[in-house]
């Protein structure tokens, strides 16, 4: 196939990616959007396979089959609650692929002693560096989320200096590599090793719950790495797709940071959650009121209006289906049930939406923070399920709190509040929550799924 035709077809693929992202902006067209973007990918793959530079197909076909099988299996097997890990892993593999491509290109040019033009070697170097950081960084993020390693920030003295040093070393070596006329092997390997290490050391000081921001950022990097590869092999679809992903990742991580009222720099370098905040209030002298599943059920059965505030605990307990069942029962008894979704509830953006959608909760019952916050004061019962930070009034009142200024759901404004959690454990931010000591609040201790199960049984009996 002529080069021109190939290029044009690549353009078609790029347009499909663009349309795909465009349609992802509404739940009604999102499925179509994702599929059309997939079609774009298929087209890009098929066209590439017809490229004259490809001479042997065995290896390729083996690779395609193995990769597709693994990918499909992972997509089928993953639990909805493990989405963040899944994305981290996929993202790492993407970075790895771009690292391998850059490396292979370098070694090939080395082998045939080809003199690369300056811009090619610069972009190749970048694609190597970014690919490597993305690979190991994402793997660490995966390990933290999967709890293979500790979710707590790992910090040690001189950490930032060391990271800065490694970064400078990589940059220095890359500049050296690019500027000397012959392509040398040792700086190549050095850059490779240090970049891989850098991915690890940059991510370990970040707390487990901040991983979505990190993943999104690394996703952005892997997009940029793909774009760099595009510069190297002069391929426009790589550049366009890479740039789209690059900007998408950055925007998403900014949105997340904004919702947590923190800066990106604070997320990346703040080692948030490593130590308790200075002025964090303690709960000494305060008492909580406990309730039982029976009492909670009675209260819910007679409530006219109920707002459910789901949080990370709901995801952990996998309680989304039973929540739905409970809501149906309450509605059958004449109450109205709404869900208040905080933008950073759970561990990744839209986490709660995905979970509740899985349980077939109609999405016109899901309300954004801004939409529903005024309604709490008119609500009989607010049911807080495994949420903590997103309903912590300290963000309004305590300037010393690490979450001070983060917009929260006004759960404390409801006529009465029932909180479902296992004990008095803190949330992600590691701080006390006044809400639990509010006289209007009753605590229902236990795993969220178990507690809800009991409530449902009671509701049915009533």
């Amino acid at each position, binding site marked *: 196939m002529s080069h021109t035709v190939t290029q044009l077809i690549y353009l078609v693929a790029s347009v499909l990616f663009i349309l795909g992202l465009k349609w*992802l902006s509404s739940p009604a067209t999102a499925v179509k959007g994702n599929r059309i973007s997939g079609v774009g990918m298929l087209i890009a793959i098929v066209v590439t396979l017809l490229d004259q530079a490809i001479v*042997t197909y065995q290896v390729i076909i083996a*690779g395609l089959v193995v990769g597709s099988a693994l*990918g499909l299996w992972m997509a089928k097997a993953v639990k909805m609650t493990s989405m963040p890990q899944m994305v981290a892993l996929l993202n790492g593999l993407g970075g790895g*692929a771009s690292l391998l491509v850059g*490396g*292979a290109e370098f070694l090939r040019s080395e082998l045939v002693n080809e003199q690369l033009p300056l811009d090619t070697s610069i972009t190749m170097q970048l694609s190597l560096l970014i690919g490597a950081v993305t690979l190991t960084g994402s793997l660490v993020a995966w390990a933290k989320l999967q709890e293979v390693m500790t979710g707590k920030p790992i910090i040690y003295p001189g950490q930032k200096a060391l990271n800065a040093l490694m970064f400078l070393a990589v940059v220095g070596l890359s500049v050296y590599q690019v500027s000397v006329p012959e392509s040398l092997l040792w700086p190549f390997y050095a850059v490779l090793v240090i970049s891989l290490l850098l991915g690890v050391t940059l991510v370990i000081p970040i707390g487990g719950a901040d991983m979505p921001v990190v993943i999104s950022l690394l996703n952005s990097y892997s997009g940029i790495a793909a774009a760099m590869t595009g510069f190297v092999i002069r391929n426009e679809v790589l550049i366009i797709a890479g740039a789209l992903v690059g900007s998408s*990742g950055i925007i998403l991580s900014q949105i997340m940071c904004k919702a947590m009222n923190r800066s990106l720099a604070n997320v990346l370098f703040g080692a948030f959650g490593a130590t308790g905040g200075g002025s964090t209030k303690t709960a000494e002298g305060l008492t909580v009121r406990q309730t039982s599943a029976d009492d909670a059920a009675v209260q819910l059965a007679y409530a006219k209006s109920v707002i459910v505030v789901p949080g990370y605990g709901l995801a952990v307990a996998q309680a989304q289906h039973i929540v739905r069942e409970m809501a149906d029962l309450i509605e059958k008894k004449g109450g109205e049930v709404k869900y208040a979704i905080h933008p950073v509830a759970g561990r990744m953006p839209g986490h709660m*939406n995905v979970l509740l959608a899985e349980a077939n909760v109609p999405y016109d019952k899901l309300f954004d923070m801004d939409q529903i916050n005024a309604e709490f004061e008119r609500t009989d019962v607010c049911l807080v399920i495994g949420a903590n930070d997103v309903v912590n009034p300290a963000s309004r009142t305590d300037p010393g709190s690490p979450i001070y200024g983060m917009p929260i759901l006004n759960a404390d404004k409801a006529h009465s509040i029932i909180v479902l959690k296992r004990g008095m454990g803190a949330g992600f931010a590691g701080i006390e929550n006044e809400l639990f000591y509010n006289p209007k609040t009753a605590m229902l201790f236990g795993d969220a799924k178990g507690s809800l199960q009991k409530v449902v049984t009671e509701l049915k009996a009533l």
Partner: protein
Amino acid sequence: MEALIGSIVIFTLATFLGVELINRVPTTLHTPLMSGANAISGITIAGALIVAGGEHGWISTVLGFLAVVFAMINVVGGYAVTDRMLQMFKRKPEQK
């Protein structure tokens, strides 16, 4: 250099376009967006295929094979898992 400039222009435009497109996506869809965008970044598959399919000695072939596998997991896994999530967002009446 001419070609490099062209690439830079394309990169710039695509970045602006990306920002506009992503800013429109509601929070609800951010998780699928993340995995969907991630799948798109698997476009490195194009580079991987060329590296794996050329005959430039066994190192390139091995690295190329691995690159194809990695990229393909990213692509297929990404699209499949996004589709799975988005299915859940479909309005109920359409589903049955």
